[in-house]
C-alpha cells in the first residue's frame, strides 16, 4: 500500500494553441511519484514544469495520455467530478499567494471547507489548527493587505492543508519572497513532509529551495532530463 505510487503519469502529451501555432509543451512524459515524497521540478521558463503541475492537480487536461492520482484516472473525470476530486485531494500553493483580498485570513483558510458538509463549529476548529500549524494564530482576523508577503504565503499553505489533502502542489512558493521569509516557508514545507507525511510536488527556479526536496527532476523542452536524488 505504501509502495503504490500516489501519482502515475503515463505517456502524457500537452499542446497549446498560441494564435495560429500549436506549441507542444510536454511530449510523451512518464513519471511515478511515491507517497511521502518531496519532489522538486526545475527547469527554464516554458519547459513545461508548471504545466505538469497543473495536469497532476487537475487544473488542466492532457492532450493525450493518462494521469492517475491515488489510483484514480483523473483525466477521465468530468469537470464537476474533477472539481469535487480536487477539493478533497489537492492543496495548491501559488507564487502570488492568491488569497481573496476581501476575506480575512481565517475565512480564506475556511474556503475549501465550505465545500464539505462540516458544520460551522468543526470548520472553525480545523481552520484554527491549520493556522496554528503555520504559526499565524494571532493573525486570524487580518486581511491580506495587512500581512507581509511571507505571512500571506503561510496563510496560503494553511489553506492548502486544511482539508488534509493527498497532495500538496506548490508553484514557485518562494518566488516572490525575500530570503528570510522564503526560508521560513521552506522550513514549513519540509516539516509538513517529514513530520506529517505529506506528499509535496514543488516547481521552483531556486536551487536553494530545491535542496530541501528528496528528489529533483529537471525539465527541458517538455522532457525530463536528470533524476538527481537530493
Amino acid at each position, binding site marked *: 500500500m505504501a509502495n503504490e505510487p500516489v501519482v502515475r503519469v503515463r505517456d502524457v502529451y500537452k499542446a497549446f494553441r498560441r494564435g495560429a501555432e500549436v506549441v507542444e509543451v510536454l511530449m510523451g512524459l512518464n513519471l511515478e511519484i511515491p507517497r511521502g515524497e518531496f519532489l522538486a521540478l526545475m527547469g527554464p521558463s516554458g519547459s513545461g514544469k508548471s504545466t505538469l503541475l497543473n495536469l497532476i492537480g487537475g487544473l488542466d487536461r492532457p492532450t493525450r495520455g493518462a494521469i492517475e492520482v491515488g489510483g484514480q484516472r483523473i483525466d477521465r473525470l468530468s469537470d464537476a467530478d474533477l*472539481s469535487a476530486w480536487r477539493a478533497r485531494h489537492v492543496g495548491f500553493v501559488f507564487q*502570488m499567494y492568491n488569497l*481573496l483580498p*476581501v476575506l480575512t485570513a481565517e*475565512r480564506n483558510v475556511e474556503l475549501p471547507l465550505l465545500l464539505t458538509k462540516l458544520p460551522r463549529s468543526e470548520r472553525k476548529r480545523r481552520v484554527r489548527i491549520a493556522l496554528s500549524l503555520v504559526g499565524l494564530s494571532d493573525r486570524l482576523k487580518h486581511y491580506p493587505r495587512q500581512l507581509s508577503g511571507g505571512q500571506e504565503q503561510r496563510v496560503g499553505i494553511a489553506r492548502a492543508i486544511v482539508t488534509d489533502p493527498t497532495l500538496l502542489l506548490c508553484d514557485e512558493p518562494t518566488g516572490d519572497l525575500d530570503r528570510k521569509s522564503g526560508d521560513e516557508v521552506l522550513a514549513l514545507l519540509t516539516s509538513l513532509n517529514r513530520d506529517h507525511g505529506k506528499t509535496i510536488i514543488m516547481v521552483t527556479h531556486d536551487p536553494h529551495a530545491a535542496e530541501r526536496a528528496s528528489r529533483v527532476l529537471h525539465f527541458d523542452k517538455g522532457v525530463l532530463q536528470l533524476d538527481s536524488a537530493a
Partner: protein
Amino acid sequence: MKYLPLIWKNIWRKKARAIFTLLSIVMAFALFGLLSAVRAAFSGGVELTGADRLVMVHKVSLIQPLPFSYMGRIRATPGVEAVAHATWFGGYYQKPENFFGQFPVDPENYLSMFPEILLPEDQKRAWLKDREGAVVGRRTAEQLGFKIGDRVPISGSPWRRKDGKEAWEFNVVGIYDGAEKGTDTTAFMFRYDYFDEARARGKGLVGWYTIRVDDPDRAAEIAQAIDANFQNSPAETKTSTEKAFAQGWANQIGNIGAIVEAISAAVFFIILLVAANTMAQSVRERVNEIAVLKTLGFGPFKVLGLVLGEAFFLALVGGVLGLMLAQVLVGGVGKVLERFLPIFYLPSEAVTTGLVIAALVGAIAGIVPGIQSMRLPIAAALRRG
C-alpha cells in the same frame, strides 16, 4: 447559507460602486412603487368596488337626475336586496380650491349599502336625530379642520335654497373612517330629506342609485331587468355593475395604466443596464480569484451560483429598500396630492410584482458574467494573475 459571507464581501469589494449601484436600484423601485400608486389612484378604486352592487344612472346623460319615485320599483325587482340613492351637491367650503364631494343621502339605507363606511353607532344615531346633520370622512375632516359640533357652511352649489340664502349650513355630527386602505374618506354626507325640502328646484329628484343584488353572479341579468322597468318612462335608466361603472370612468381618464407601465419598463431597463454593468465589471476584475476558487474545488455550477447569488442579493436588497422608500414617498406625496387624488396608496400587488422584478433583474444581470465565470479555463486564468 454558508456562502453568504463570501457573497456579501464580494459585493462590497469596491465600496463606492456597490453603494451607487444599490442606490440606483433603490431609486428605480421607489419610482415603481410610486407609479403603482398613481395607477391605482387613476383606476378610481376599481379593485375596491363591491361585487354585489350596481349603479344606476340616467340613460341619456349621467348628469341628468332620476326621480326619487323610482326607488319603490327598483326595490321590487326580483334579485334586488337593497337600494340607496345619492346626488352630487357640487359645492365647496370657503374657497373653490377646498374641493371635496358632498352628497345628500338617506342615512339608513346609504350606510347599510356601503359597509366600508365605518361610523360609530352613537354618531349614526345623532345623524338620524338632526335633520341638518352631516357626516364627513376623516380625510376631509383632517384637511379642513372639521370637528364634531362644528357648523359648516357649504357654498357654490348649483342647488339653490328656497329661502334664498347663499350657503347651506350643516352640523357635523360624525366622522367616518374607511374599512380598507383605499376607501374614500373624503365625502361629506348630509340628509336628503332636509335637502329636498329646502331646495328651490328639482324636488323629488336624485342623482343616481346604488343597488345591492342578492346574487353577484346574476348581476348583469338583474341590471337588465331593472332597466326594463323604466324602458319607456320619461327618464330611462342605465344600470351596470359598480366595477364596470368605475372601469368606464377610469378608461375615460385615459390610458394611465399604459403610460405608467411604459415608464416603469423604461426605468427597469435602465436599471438592468446599470446592474449588469456593475456585475460585469465586478467579475472581470476577479478573474484570478475565480480561478483560485476553482482550484480549491469549487465546481462550475458553484461558481455560477456565487455570481448569480451576488447579483440576486444586490437586486433584492435594492428592491426591498426601494419598495420601503416607496411606501414612505406614497405617504408624503399623498399628502401633497390630496386635493386631486383622494385615493393614494401602495397596492400590495405592486410589492409582490416589485420583488419578482427584482429577482429577474438579478438573474439577468448576473447570468452572462456567471456563465463566463463558469467556463473560465483555470490554468489560463491563473497565469493572467
